[in-house]
C-alpha cells in the first residue's frame, strides 16, 4: 500500500504538463569550494523552496516566467538572484561567510527546525566541535554528539554512543557513506574521526528516512572535506597526546582538488628513551594510534563529478624483548615480539552524475574492513662449539569483518513540493569471528602449524528504498518511505520490509508538531563482554538460530523557533528492540567462537523517554542545553532468572550543556557541563555458602569441606552508581600572525571541580577489616593545551 502511494506520487508528478523549468546547481563556500550541505534555496515569487543535498546539489522546478531565488545558510550572507524561466537553468552559487554573526538576519524561509518533516535530528557544527573543551585537548566529534539529548556516553572518558536505549552496535556511523565498524581508539577514549578532516556531521535518532537502513538506533552521517578547489591551505596542531596535520588544495584549479590529513599519538616515542634506559636496552614497548584521511575529487563537468576517499586507522600496543647472555661457553639469545593491534580501513569511490536537471544520481563502490589481531612470537637460539640450536613459537589471534559494497542512489526533484529519493545497494560481508594460528618449530623446521577457531562466514545483504518528502497544503509536510532489505547467510534468508514515516504540521509560522514511525532491521550482532566498546568485540552475522535485530520506534515532538535566535524542541519516543544478544552467564570472547551462537542468550529491549533541547546557533554566545528523561530495559528468558532488568546505560536523567562565547576575533571560550544518573551495575547484596559442585556433596558426605562463598545478585544491573557530573572549560586564543598564517593556543581544564566520578564499583575491606563498597574513579582535574595553526 505504502509503496503504491509512493509510486503513484512519483508517476503523477512526472506527468505534470504545466510549463515548468528547473533551476539546478551546486552551492559551495567561496574560498574553498567546499559544498554547503543543507543550504536553503527559496523562490520569493512562488514561496517554494528546497535544500542542497550532501553533495551541495540542489534542484528546484518552478512554473511562471521568472523567479527570484534567495540562497541562505547559517553563518553566510544571503544571496538573491532573479532568473528568467524560459528554459532550464544551471546556477552554481558560492556563498560568503558573514563574520558579523550578530548581524545576520535569518529570514523566515531558511531551514528552520519547525519546517523540516524530519525530527530527532541534530546537525553538529564543526566550529563547535573545535571550540569546546575536551579530555586531553583531543577534539572529538563523537564526544560532542554525546552532549546532545537522547545520547548516552557510556563510561567515563569514552567516546561510546548509546542512542535512545540502544546498544553501541546499533549506530550506523557513515564516513562518506561507508559504514565504520569500530569508531574508537584506545579502548574508546578517543574516536577515530580527526576533526580537521570533517566537513559536516548529522545525527539521526529516530524517524529515519527510508534511504538509511541497517542499524536500529541511530545514523551518524559524517562527510569528509572535499579539498579546497581554489588554493592551497593547511592546518595542524600539536597537543598533549597527538600531533596532526591537514593539507588541501587544487590539483587543477576549480576542477580537481585533494585533502589529506594524518594524526598520530606519540606517548610511545617520548617514553621510549626512558624505557630503554630502564630495561638496559633489552626491550621496549608502548602504545600508539594513527589515522589518515585522504580525499580526491574531480569535476568532469557541471554534470559529472568523481570522488575518491580513503581512511586508514590503527591502534597498536607492542612490546619487544631481546636478550643475550653467555653461560658455560654457550651463547643464549632470546627474542620476543608481542603486539595487539586493531583498526579500520575504508575506501570509497563515488560518482555524481546529473542525468537531467531534476534527476541527480550517485553511484558508490566501497570497501570497509575492521581487524583485531593479537600476536606474539618467541625465538630462542643457543650457539655453542657443537653448533647452533634454535626454536620458535608464535601465536596469532585474528578477528574481523570485511565488506565490499556497491550502491546507486537517486535524488529526484520533480516539483518544489516533492523531494524523492530512491536507490538500491548490495554488500558482500566476510565475517571472521576469531581465528587462532599456532606455529612452532625447531632448528628452522616447521613442526607445528595449526589454525583453529571459527571459519569465515560469507553473507550477502541487499537493500532498496524509495521515499518522498512532500507537502500537503501549506501546513503539512510528510516524508513517506519504504526500505526493503534482505540478508542471506548459510542457506538462511531474512527479508525485511520497513515502512518509514515522518511528518510535521505547522501550528503557526514559528512552531510545529512532528511525528514519526520507523521500523529498522539490523543484520549484524556485536558480541561484547562489557558493552563498553573494546576492540575485542566481535561482529557476527545472524544465523539459523540467532535472528536479525529489529526495532520499532514512534516519536512525537514539538519544535519552535523563538525570536529568530533560539530553537526549542521536545520529543517523546517509544522504542522496542528484538533479538538482542548477550553472552550467557560465564561465557566470554576468550575461547572458541565457532560456536558463538550457542554461547549467547537472545532477548528483547524496551526504551522510552523524553528529550528537551534549547539551542542557539548564531551570535557571539551559542550552544545548547539538552535534558533527557529516559528508561531502557532488557528482558532475556535465561538471564536474571527471566526478570526484566535495566540496561547498563539506562539513565533516568541526563543533562548536557555546551556553550561557546566569542569575546572578539582573538579570544573565545567553551564550557561543557554534563550530568547523568549513575550507570546501572551488577553488585551482590547478600553472601552465603555453597557446595563446590553437586557431586562433591556425595564425595565429602556433606562435611564442612568444599564450601565456597557466593555473592547473591538479586538483579542484574540492579545497583546504581553515584551520579556523574563534570564541568570542563577551555579558552582558545587566536592570532593572525601574518596575512596567511593564523595560530591558536587552546588551554583546557577537564573536570574543573575535580569530581571523583564513578568508573567501577567493587567490595573491599577497609583498614578495620570491614567490607566496604569501593569506587574507582579515572580522571581527576586534567589540564591540557594544544597549539594549532592554519595557513
Amino acid at each position, binding site marked *: 500500500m505504502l509503496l503504491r502511494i509512493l509510486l503513484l506520487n512519483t508517476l503523477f508528478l512526472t506527468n505534470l504538463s504545466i510549463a515548468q523549468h528547473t533551476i539546478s546547481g551546486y552551492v559551495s563556500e567561496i574560498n574553498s569550494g567546499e559544498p554547503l550541505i543543507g543550504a536553503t534555496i527559496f523562490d520569493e515569487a512562488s514561496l517554494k523552496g528546497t535544500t542542497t543535498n550532501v553533495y551541495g546539489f540542489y534542484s528546484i522546478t518552478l512554473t511562471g516566467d521568472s523567479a527570484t531565488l534567495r540562497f541562505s545558510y547559517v553563518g553566510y550572507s544571503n544571496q538573491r538572484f532573479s532568473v528568467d524561466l524560459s528554459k532550464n537553468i544551471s546556477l552554481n552559487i558560492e556563498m560568503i561567510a558573514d563574520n558579523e554573526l550578530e548581524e545576520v538576519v535569518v529570514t523566515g524561509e531558511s531551514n528552520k527546525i519547525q519546517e523540516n518533516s524530519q525530527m530527532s535530528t541534530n546537525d553538529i557544527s564543526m566550529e563547535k566541535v573545535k571550540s569546546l573543551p575536551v579530555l586531553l585537548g583531543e577534539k572529538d566529534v563523537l564526544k560532542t554528539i554525546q552532549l546532545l539529548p537522547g545520547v548516552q556516553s557510556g563510561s567515563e572518558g569514552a567516546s561510546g554512543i548509546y542512542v535512545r536505549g540502544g546498544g553501541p552496535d546499533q549506530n550506523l556511523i557513515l564516513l562518506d557513506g561507508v559504514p565504520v565498524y569500530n569508531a574508537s581508539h584506545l579502548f574508546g577514549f578517543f574516536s577515530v574521526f580527526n576533526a580537521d578532516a570533517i566537513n559536516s556531521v548529522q545525527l539521526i535518532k529516530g524517524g529515519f528516512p527510508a534511504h538509511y537502513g541497517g542499524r536500529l538506533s541511530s545514523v551518524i552521517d559524517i562527510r569528509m572535506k572535499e579539498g579546497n578547489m581554489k588554493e592551497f591551505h593547511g592546518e595542524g596542531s600539536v597537543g598533549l597526546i597527538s600531533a596532526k596535520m591537514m593539507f588541501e588544495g587544487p590539483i587543477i584549479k576549480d576542477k580537481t582538488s585533494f585533502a589529506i590529513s594524518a594524526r598520530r599519538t606519540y606517548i610511545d616515542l617520548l617514553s621510549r628513551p626512558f624505557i630503554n634506559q630502564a630495561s638496559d636496552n633489552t626491550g621496549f614497548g608502548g602504545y600508539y594510534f594513527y589515522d589518515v584521511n585522504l580525499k580526491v575529487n574531480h569535476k568532469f563537468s557541471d554534470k559529472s563529478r568523481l570522488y575518491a576517499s580513503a581512511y586508514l586507522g590503527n591502534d597498536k600496543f607492542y612490546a619487544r624483548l631481546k636478550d643475550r647472555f653467555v653461560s658455560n661457553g654457550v651463547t643464549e639469545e632470546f627474542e620476543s615480539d608481542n603486539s595487539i593491534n586493531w583498526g579500520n580501513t575504508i575506501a570509497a569511490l563515488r560518482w555524481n552524475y546529473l542525468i537531467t536537471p531534476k534527476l541527480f544520481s550517485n553511484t558508490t563502490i566501497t570497501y570497509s574492513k575492521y581487524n583485531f589481531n593479537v600476536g606474539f612470537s618467541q625465538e630462542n637460539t643457543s650457539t655453542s662449539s657443537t653448533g647452533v640450536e634454535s626454536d620458535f613459537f608464535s601465536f596469532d589471534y585474528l578477528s574481523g569483518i570485511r565488506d565490499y559494497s556497491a550502491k546507486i542512489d537517486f535524488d529526484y526533484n520533480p516539483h518544489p513540493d516533492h523531494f524523492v529519493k530512491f536507490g538500491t545497494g548490495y554488500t558482500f560481508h566476510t565475517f571472521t569471528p576469531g581465528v587462532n594460528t599456532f606455529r612452532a618449530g625447531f632448528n628452522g623446521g616447521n613442526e607445528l602449524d595449526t589454525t583453529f577457531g571459527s571459519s569465515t562466514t560469507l553473507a550477502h545483504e541487499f537493500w532498496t528504498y524509495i521515499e518522498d518528502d512532500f507537502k500537503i497544503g501549506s501546513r503539512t509536510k510528510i516524508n513517506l518511505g519504504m526500505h526493503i532489505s534482505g540478508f542471506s547467510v548459510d542457506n538462511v534468508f531474512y527479508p525485511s520490509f520497513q515502512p518509514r514515516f515522518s511528518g510535521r504540521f505547522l501550528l503557526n509560522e514559528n512552531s510545529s508538531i512532528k511525528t514519526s514511525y520507523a521500523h529498522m532491521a539490523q543484520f549484524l550482532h556485536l558480541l561484547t563482554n*562489557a558493552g563498553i566498546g573494546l576492540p575485542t568485540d566481535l561482529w557476527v552475522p545472524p544465523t539459523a538460530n540467532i535472528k536479525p535485530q529489529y526495532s520499532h520506534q514512534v516519536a512525537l515532538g514539538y519544535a519552535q523557533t523563538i525570536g529568530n535566535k533560539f530553537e526549542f524542541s521536545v520529543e517523546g519516543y517509544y522504542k522496542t528492540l528484538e533479538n538482542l544478544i548477550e553472552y550467557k552467564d560465564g561465557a566470554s570472547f576468550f575461547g572458541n567462537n565457532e560456536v558463538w551462537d550457542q554461547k549467547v542468550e537472545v532477548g528483547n529491549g524496551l526504551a522510552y523517554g523524553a528529550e528537551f533541547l534549547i539551542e542557539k546557533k548564531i551570535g557571539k554566545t551559542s550552544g545548547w542545553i539538552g535534558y533527557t528523561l529516559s528508561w531502557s530495559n532488557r528482558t532475556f528468558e535465561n538471564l536474571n532468572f527471566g526478570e526484566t532488568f535495566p540496561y547498563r546505560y539506562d539513565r533516568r536523567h541526563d543533562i548536557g550543556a555546551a556553550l561557546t562565547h566569542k569575546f572578539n576575533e582573538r579570544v573565545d571560550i567553551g564550557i561543557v557541563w554534563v550530568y547523568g544518573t549513575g550507570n546501572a551495575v551488577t553488585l551482590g547484596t547478600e553472601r552465603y555458602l555453597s557446595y563446590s559442585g*553437586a557431586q562433591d556433596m556425595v564425595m565429602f558426605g556433606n562435611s564442612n569441606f568444599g564450601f565456597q562463598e557466593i555473592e547473591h545478585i538479586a538483579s542484574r544491573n540492579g545497583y546504581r552508581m553515584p551520579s556523574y557530573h563534570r564541568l570542563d572549560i577551555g579558552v582558545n586564543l587566536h592570532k593572525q600572525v601574518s596575512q596567511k598564517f593564523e595560530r591558536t593556543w587552546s588551554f583546557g581544564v577537564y573536570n574543573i571541580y575535580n569530581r571523583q566520578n564513578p568508573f567501577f564499583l567493587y567490595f573491599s575491606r577497609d583498614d578495620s577489616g570491614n567490607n566496604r563498597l569501593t569506587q574507582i574513579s579515572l580522571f581527576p582535574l586534567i589540564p591540557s593545551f594544544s597549539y594549532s595553526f592554519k595557513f
Partner: protein
Amino acid sequence: MKNKKIKYQYLIVLISLSHFFTSCEKYLEFDEEIKEPKIVVNSIIHPDSVFKVHLSRSLSVIDNGDLTSIENGTVEIYNENGALIETLTHNQYGEYRGNLNPSEGQTYQLKVSAIGYESVSAIDYIPSLVNISNVDTTGVENIDGFKELKLEVSFQDPQNIQNYYQIEIIRTQIVNGDLFENPTFIRSDDLSTGNDPEYYKYIYFDDILFDGNLKTITIFTEDTREFDNFIEIRLSSLSESAYKYSKSYQAYSNNIGLGNVFAQPIQVHNNIENGFGIFGGVNISRKKVTF
C-alpha cells in the same frame, strides 16, 4: 591452555593502561537496605544415599561476620502428596541426615524452620537414571609432552523429556588396600555441549540437540594410567534445578579472580523459597575403566 595466553596478554595491556591514567579510589556508602540473615540450604539428593541437608546462614554483603552453620533447625521431607515422610536429625556442623533414600522419579518437598529465621522450602525430583552403555578408550594424543587420554562415552537419551547431564571422571588409586579417589579435569570438543573445549571439573549439557538418540560424547583427560588403578566415569542425570545450579556454580567459580574482569558477574541459580541454596535431585550412573 592456549587461550590463557591471550588472557595474560590482555591483562598486561589493561594493567599498563591503568598506569597510563591516574585512577583514584574511595569508599562509598552501600545504598541497599541491609538484609537480615536467611536460611541457606545445601542439599543434593540421590537414590544412592539417605537424605542429607546442610544448613547455614546468609549475611548482607557488607557484613563480614561468619557464615555459620544452623544446628537447631527443623528439617522435614514431604512426598508429592504433601505427607511428611521423614524429619532429619542434626549430625554435625549443620548437616542433617535421615534414614530413607530418595527414589527415582519421585518429587520431594523440603521444609526448614529455625528460631530467628524465616522458614524456607523447596521442591525437586529425582530424575530417571541414564546408564552409560559403553566407554571406549580410543587413544592417546600427545600435545607438547602432555598426554591426553581420549574417551568415548555412549548412552541412550530418553525420548520426549528434557534431560540434563553432568559428566566427571574420578581417578582412583589403591594404596595398601585403601581407595584414593581424585576428581580430575576434563574437556570435550563436542560442540553440541555449547562449552569451550577447555578443561573443567564437570561438563554440563542438555539433550536439545540429540533428544531420544544414542549419544556418544568424546572427552579428554590427562593420561594417568601409570599412576592410577582405574578411573570411574560418572554420568549424572540432573533435575532442571540441579543442572542450573551446578552449571551456574561452575561458571561462578571460573569467573572469580582477574580472568574475566569485564564479564558480567554470575547469578547462581537458587531454588530455595525465602532463602538461598539448592535442593536438587541427581541420579548417577558409574562405569569403571580398569587399566
